[in-house]
């Protein structure tokens, strides 16, 4: 059995994230994104690869959306309303609340540009009605076999990594995530799971980033400098996520420094998004959560309501306007007005797709002129500041997560090909985990974990789980005054018997009952000669030694053996000494199995399990010369 991954989007690129995973007969679509570079059908994943018939509802078990960014959810209304997928869709509560705003924002932009729209406002609303909202860590049984669970991913409000399990095969799809907490959101958090596969984003596959706090400080410094000298700050952002994060920074800074410069939001949807953020404050960072009772961080104190007349009002201000890449709309309109003045400042987002005004500004040297179309040019003399913020994890974060989860395989998506290749090498060489990064529309097959199931007896579990301590004394060095070290061994038996019929694992002791057999014991018998010196030869050569002589010889033996085998015991009636099942006693000629007729012999018996031990003791006895000196010392002891 195997896990099959069909990468429909974000394979060796960033955009239209979509991976279809088949796992033990269940088919899950992770994300259903849109590519922002295209405006025709190329912006969607090639859904026809999922099903020739176009019956997506029966060919997918469920669709899982990780967060509300359009490159992860943009194709969903098209997929459900136009292509007719009608199965379950899962996303977190914040994603369900915020996704319609993001989608509607996009739809309005295309409408403004006069392009043909792929889905309507009604499509969005109907699509969202089919969504099941989930909470973090909640175990959701999609059907009898498929279980999914969301984990906190940082990145944006409501972003989640998803765990999916069918039988023993399990995987995690990370979506976009951030491994360090920032002001708005916490760091990604996941349990240590048994995984066959991790599908991870790799936006910053080779980048190592500094702490975000440095970047935040620089951003605030730039804004402060501009407004202090009477300039206007334009922050082009989309309605969601980034706007709230930056505004939270500013609002907090305004409070601390007692600034009174007004902050405006141009778009109504941003203001609505603020309301959602206030209700969903439990999904933010620990610090924001802890302080919400006193002051909800999204209850911005310095934000004033905005109208168009304020664009050219005198005095400094900060304005958030969409869209983020200045591709048209209100932010561009404001740019035209503000760009010619040196005291003003434009905050550009981290990345702008090519062809937009944003990207032109990014590479421009100030002062310059920017052509909007044949007739319109803007004089740009204002300052330009590039926001370096990113809510994606860097290479260290990816490595940390992969190491933490230690899956059997890693699949990289959502990154640039050469960087992914470098990261793959790193994962394979440093972590020893198989890794791949398929291109769009490629399928990768990965082996998955399986097991067979059997009943198990309590006795077997007991023998495996109950500690079975053995104590061992060892002498340290030659100095006899230091007490011997006590060593403890946990000698558990993890051995049992598996029966094929009515599969069941039992302990060895139970086997007899199962088979209905009698117990047979294998016992070894050996007669071992011992060397002795002349002084005790009398006792040894006398073949009918008195009981006291026997005892003293056994004592002698005991003394020698117990030095190396601390759990050696003397039998009660002093007939012999015992280590485990090994027993040594004086050999009497009549009973001797080997028929030895001369010298001193000990008769040794042991059972099969202690064979190794027995030969150790025997070789010890053989190599030692019994001497009366040691006998004397025992006599002394015995006299007491």
């Amino acid at each position, binding site marked *: 059995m195997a896990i099959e991954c069909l990468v429909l989007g974000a394979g060796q690129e960033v955009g239209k994230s979509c991976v279809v995973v088949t796992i033990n007969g269940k088919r899950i679509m992770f994300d259903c994104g849109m590519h922002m570079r295209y405006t025709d059908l190329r912006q969607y994943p090639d859904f026809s690869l999922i099903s020739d018939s176009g019956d997506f509802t029966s060919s997918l078990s469920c669709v899982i959306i990780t967060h509300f960014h359009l490159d992860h959810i943009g194709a969903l209304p098209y997929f459900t309303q136009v292509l007719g997928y009608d199965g379950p869709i899962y996303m977190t*509560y914040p994603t369900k609340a915020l996704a319609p705003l993001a989608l509607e924002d996009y739809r309005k932009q295309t409408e403004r540009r006069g392009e043909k729209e792929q889905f309507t406002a009604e499509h969005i609303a109907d699509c969202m009605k089919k969504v099941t909202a989930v909470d973090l860590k909640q175990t959701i049984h999609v059907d009898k076999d498929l279980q999914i669970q969301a984990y906190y991913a940082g990145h944006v409000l409501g972003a989640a990594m998803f765990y999916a399990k069918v039988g023993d095969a399990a995987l995690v799809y990370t979506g976009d995530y951030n491994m360090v907490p920032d002001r708005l959101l916490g760091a990604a958090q996941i349990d240590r799971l*048994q995984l066959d596969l991790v599908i991870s984003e790799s936006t910053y596959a080779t980048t190592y980033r500094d702490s975000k706090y440095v970047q935040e400080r620089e951003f605030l410094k730039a804004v402060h400098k501009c407004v202090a000298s009477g300039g206007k700050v334009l922050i082009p952002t989309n309605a969601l996520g980034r706007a709230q994060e930056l505004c939270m920074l500013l609002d907090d800074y305004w409070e601390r420094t007692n600034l009174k410069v007004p902050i405006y939001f141009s778009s109504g949807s941003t203001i609505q998004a603020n*309301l959602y953020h206030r209700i969903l404050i439990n999904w933010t960072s620990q610090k924001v959560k802890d302080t919400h009772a006193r002051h909800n961080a999204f209850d911005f104190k310095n934000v004033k309501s905005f109208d168009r007349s304020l664009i050219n009002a005198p005095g400094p201000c900060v304005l958030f306007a969409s869209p983020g890449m200045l591709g048209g709309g209100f932010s561009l309109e404001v740019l035209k007005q503000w760009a010619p003045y040196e005291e003003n400042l434009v905050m550009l987002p981290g990345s702008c797709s090519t062809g937009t005004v944003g990207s032109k500004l990014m590479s421009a040297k100030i002062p310059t002129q920017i052509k909007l179309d044949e007739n319109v040019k803007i004089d740009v003399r204002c300052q330009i500041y590039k926001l370096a913020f990113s809510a994606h994890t860097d290479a260290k974060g990816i490595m940390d997560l992969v190491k933490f989860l230690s899956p059997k395989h890693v699949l990289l998506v959502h990154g640039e090909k050469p960087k992914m290749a470098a990261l793959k090498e790193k994962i394979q060489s440093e972590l020893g985990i198989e890794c791949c990064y398929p291109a769009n529309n490629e399928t990768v097959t990965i082996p998955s*974990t399986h097991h067979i199931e*059997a009943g198990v*007896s309590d006795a077997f579990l007991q023998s495996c789980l109950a500690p079975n301590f053995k104590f061992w004394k060892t002498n340290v060095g030659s100095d006899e005054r230091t007490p011997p070290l006590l060593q403890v061994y946990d000698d558990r038996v993890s051995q049992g018997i*598996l029966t*094929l019929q009515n599969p069941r694992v039992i302990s060895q002791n139970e086997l007899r009952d199962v088979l209905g057999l009698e117990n047979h014991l294998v016992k070894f018998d050996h007669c071992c000669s011992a060397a002795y010196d002349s002084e005790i030869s009398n006792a040894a050569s006398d073949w009918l030694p008195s009981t006291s002589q026997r005892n003293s010889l056994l004592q002698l033996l005991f003394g020698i053996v117990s030095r190396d085998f601390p759990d050696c015991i003397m039998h009660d009636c002093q007939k012999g000494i015992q280590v485990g099942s090994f027993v040594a006693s004086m050999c009497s000629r009549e009973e001797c199995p080997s028929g030895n007729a001369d010298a001193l012999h000990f008769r040794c018996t042991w059972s099969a399990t202690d064979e190794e031990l027995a030969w150790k003791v025997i070789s010890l006895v053989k190599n030692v010369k019994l001497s009366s000196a040691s006998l004397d010392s025992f006599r002394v002891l015995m006299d007491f």
Partner: protein
Amino acid sequence: MSALISQTCLSEDSNEEKRGNGLIYAEPRYRTVTRLLSWNVSFIDVVLITSPNGMLGLPFLTRKKGFTAKVYATKAASRIGQLMMEDLVYMHKEFRQFYGPESDEPIWMKWDRLEMLPLELKKTVFGADGTDFGCWMPLYSAADVKACMLKVKSLNYAEEICYNGIVIAKPLPSGLEIGSCNWRINGPRGNIAYISNFSSLNALEQVGNDEDRSGLANYLSNSSSADVNSETRSALLSTDEYLEEIDKLDFICSCSMDSIKAGGSILIPTGRLGIILQLLERFELHLTSENMKVPIFVISSVAEELMTFTSIIPEWLGQQCQDRLYSEKPSLFTHTEMLKDGRLYLFPAIHSVELLKIWQEPCIVFCPHWSLRLGPVTHLLRRWRGDQNSLLVIEEGVDANLVLLPFKPIAMKVLQCSFLSGMQLKKSLLLMKILQPKHVLFPEIFRRCVDTLKVSLSSSFYQENETLHIPHTEDSSRLHIDMDLARQIKYTKFEEQNVDISRLKGKLTVEHGRYKAVR
């Protein structure tokens, strides 16, 4: 393996002793599980909490020496429970400020005084079998509550916890209160569902849905095909109960409207957050439709915290509230709006300066405590008891005669109302039909009903201070043998017995409720 501590608190005190009505004049004392004092608490491994109310006695347990058990509650239940405990501690502090501190052994607990108690009170003080007297404890301290909360691990709905590798517990929404839950406990030798309530329809609280129920069913019974007819299922899902509840709330509202019109005020002493929230929604509707402007006050040391908390927990609420989150104007409860435009006020105490400034009558007041012995209710009741136009709403289940005794004579109208506080037996039997458990434990008080209904269920009955032993439902545990290990298996045939056996040697691990053998 697990113990569930739910507090039964009973307080009787009054400063009316001199009037000879037999009441005790003292700071209220509390009683929790009778055997708590004699238990060796170190033998408890896990404590599972089902609702905010169900954890009010928890500090008595967690502060005991040797308590090391893991305590699990839903996030919402533990937060609300904590606030309720803090409020209770605050009210006691206030009580002591008014009447002075009390010695370790209050006068009423001396033997000669106890002899003089009326019979009815004696029964309460000593318990039915006369052994309860030693169980009356003074309330825990704020520090106890704090220490207790540090020991509570809080979970989301349907979040699994794994105890000791092999026992898995999971709280599923029960629909009674915000954060209340039923517990599903899976073990290697059988599975347990602890059902405190099952309400399938509720406007505010998240309800148990079909999936949760089947989740419960599978594990409770382990019967692969639970053959449930649709009739049973729809009966369980019937809206009757919910509509009845709304009718009750509307009845309270319309009575209140009448009182207000006559110039009286409304006093609702309750600690149940769910009731307060639902009533606020209904009052808003009624007041708007009658075009009346009457201020609503919620007076409690934790009112502010409770209301802030309820405005940020969409994950814990029912469909109706969740839909409001996804609407154009996201807001979970009407009270957020009411607070903004000055129709609702929250105050920590009745003597708040701000409250005195804006106080006006008639008004509607929600405040603790339902026993009418503690908190703001005592003062307001004194103020309004002589006003025949005012209305007092109390819950059923308390002895109205007894709780009102110190305030007599009363001219004020009293409305006693039972709110949904659990599952009816009829419904629980329907639920059993769906779950098909191998064995059911009912509370002792249901014995008669269950017997007369001739339910074909293997069942037994539990009562306080009694341990029941239930046999394992599974014959043996299951072992998962990893494929890598399984491939090494070579069977030897025993012809005579017709048995194939193989030696199995590997490492046994216990993970997330499963025994696994790996190479």
